[in-house]
C-alpha cells in the first residue's frame, strides 16, 4: 500500500508554519481554483503552487506513484469529455475554428482544445498544493488546526482518529486478504464479476466486524477518560501563530480575492482569447 501520501518530518519554513495557516491557504487555494476558469489566473496559480512545492523539498519517491495515477485519471477524463461533447468549447467561447476533421461528426477545434486545456490546468493547480499540505502537516496538528478555525473539537477528533487509523485498517485489510488468498480465494481480474463481489465480501466482512469492535473499544476508552465532558480542549500538537503565519494568511487572502476579481470582473468565468 505504498501508493498513499504521508506526512514526513523535515525542517523547511513550510514545515514550521502552523497547521492552521496551511489549512487556510489550502482551502482558499481550492476555492479559487474551483471557481475560476480564467486561463491567466489558473496558469499563475499553477506556477505559484509549483514554486511552493519546490520550496517544501518534497522528493519524487514520496509522490511519484500517486502522480502517475492522477495523470492517468486526467487523460481518461479529458478523452471522455471529448468523446461525449466535442463542441463544448465551441459553445463556451461562442466561435468555431476547425483544425482537422477526425471521423464522422468529430472535428477537432481550437476552442475544444483550449477548453480541455483549462480543465487540465484547473486540476493541476490543486495537485502540488495538496501534496505540499499533506506531506508537510503533522496529522495531529491538523486536528488541532480544525478546532482552531472554529470547527467543533468533536469533528476535529473524528478526523484525527480517521488519520490515525487509516494505516491500521489498511494493515488489517492486507492481513485478511492474505489469509483468504492462502485459503485459495482468487482476487485478480480472472474471476467473474459476481465471484469477485463474493470474494471481496470475504475480506470486507471480517474487516468491518473487527472495526465495529474497535469502535466500541476506542469509544469506551475515551468515555472512561471523560472525553466530551467540557466545551473546550487544549491540544498537545497545536502550534501558536507566528509572524510568518500571519504573512502567509494575508498573502493567500489577497491572492484569492485578486483571482476572483480577475475572473468575474467581466461577468464570465471564462477567459476568451477567441473573441
Amino acid at each position: 500500500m505504498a501508493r498513499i501520501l504521508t506526512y514526513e518530518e523535515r525542517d523547511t519554513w513550510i514545515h514550521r508554519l502552523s497547521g492552521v495557516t496551511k489549512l487556510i491557504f489550502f482551502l482558499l487555494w481550492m476555492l479559487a481554483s474551483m471557481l475560476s476558469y480564467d486561463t491567466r489566473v489558473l496558469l499563475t496559480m499553477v506556477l505559484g503552487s509549483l514554486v511552493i512545492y519546490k520550496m517544501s523539498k518534497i522528493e519524487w519517491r514520496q509522490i511519484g506513484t500517486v502522480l502517475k495515477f492522477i495523470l492517468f485519471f486526467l487523460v481518461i477524463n479529458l478523452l471522455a469529455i471529448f468523446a461525449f461533447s466535442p463542441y463544448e468549447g465551441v459553445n463556451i467561447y461562442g466561435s468555431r475554428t476547425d483544425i482537422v476533421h477526425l471521423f464522422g461528426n468529430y472535428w477537432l477545434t481550437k476552442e475544444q482544445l483550449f477548453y480541455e486545456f483549462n480543465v487540465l490546468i484547473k486540476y493541476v493547480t490543486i495537485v502540488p498544493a495538496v501534496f505540499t499540505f499533506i506531506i508537510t502537516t503533522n496529522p495531529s496538528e491538523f486536528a488541532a488546526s480544525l478546532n482552531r478555525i472554529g470547527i467543533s473539537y468533536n469533528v476535529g477528533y473524528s478526523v484525527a482518529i480517521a488519520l490515525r487509523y487509516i494505516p491500521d485498517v489498511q494493515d488489517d485489510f492486507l492481513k485478511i486478504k492474505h489469509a483468504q488468498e492462502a485459503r485459495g480465494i482468487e482476487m485478480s481480474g480472472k474471476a467473474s464479476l459476481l465471484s469477485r463481489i463474493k470474494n471481496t465480501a470475504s475480506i470486507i466482512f471480517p474487516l468491518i466486524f473487527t472495526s465495529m469492535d474497535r469502535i466500541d473499544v476506542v469509544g469506551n476508552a475515551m468515555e472512561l477518560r471523560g472525553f466530551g465532558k467540557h466545551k473546550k480542549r487544549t491540544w498537545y500538537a497545536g502550534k501558536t501563530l507566528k509572524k510568518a503565519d500571519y504573512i502567509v494568511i494575508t498573502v493567500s487572502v489577497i491572492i484569492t480575492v485578486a483571482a476572483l476579481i480577475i475572473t468575474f470582473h467581466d461577468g464570465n468565468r471564462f477567459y476568451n482569447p477567441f473573441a
Partner: protein
Amino acid sequence: MKTKFGVKEVVAIGIGAALFVALTQVQIPLGIPNTYLQPRAALLAFLAAVFGPVVGAAVGLIGHALGDIFFYGSAWWSWVFPEAIFGFILGVFAKKYSIKEGGFGKKEIIHFNVVQIIANAAAWILAAPVLDILIYKEPVNKVFLQGVAAWLGNVIIIAILGTLLAVGYSKVGAKSSSLTKED
C-alpha cells in the same frame, strides 16, 4: 429528528472514515471512465444504517475527501458532497432498520433497499452531475451518464454487500438476546 452526538459517534465517524479510505482502492471496474463498483459504498450504507444520519453524512464527507486527497492528490468536491447527502438520507431511517437490536428482517431489508435506491438517485443522478456542471463546467451528457453509471453501480453493490453486512451484523448483535432460559 434528533440524534445524540456522543463519544461513540465521534469514534464511529473516525474509524468509519478510515475504513472508507482504505476501501477506496478496492474497486471493480464497470467499463465507463472513472466509474467503478465500489464496496466502500456498501460500507457507508451499512454505517449510516447502524449509526444514523450524522455519522452517515460525516463518514461520507470526511472519508470521500480524505480518500480522494490521499489517492488522487485532489478532492473532486462535486462527488464528495453527494456522498454525504447519500449517507444522511439513508441514516435518517436508522431506527427503522433496528440493525443493532437484531431486528433486521425481511420488511427491514426491503425498506433499506428502497431507501438506498432513492438516496443513491438523489446523490448521483441529481446532486453530483449538477455540482459537476456548476463547479467544473463539464459537458452535460457526460456527467449525467457518469451519474447514472455510479447510481447503478452503487445500487447493485449496496443491494448485495450492504444488505448482507446488515443482516450479518444484525445476527451477531442479536446473540445476547437470543439466549433462552433453561428450565
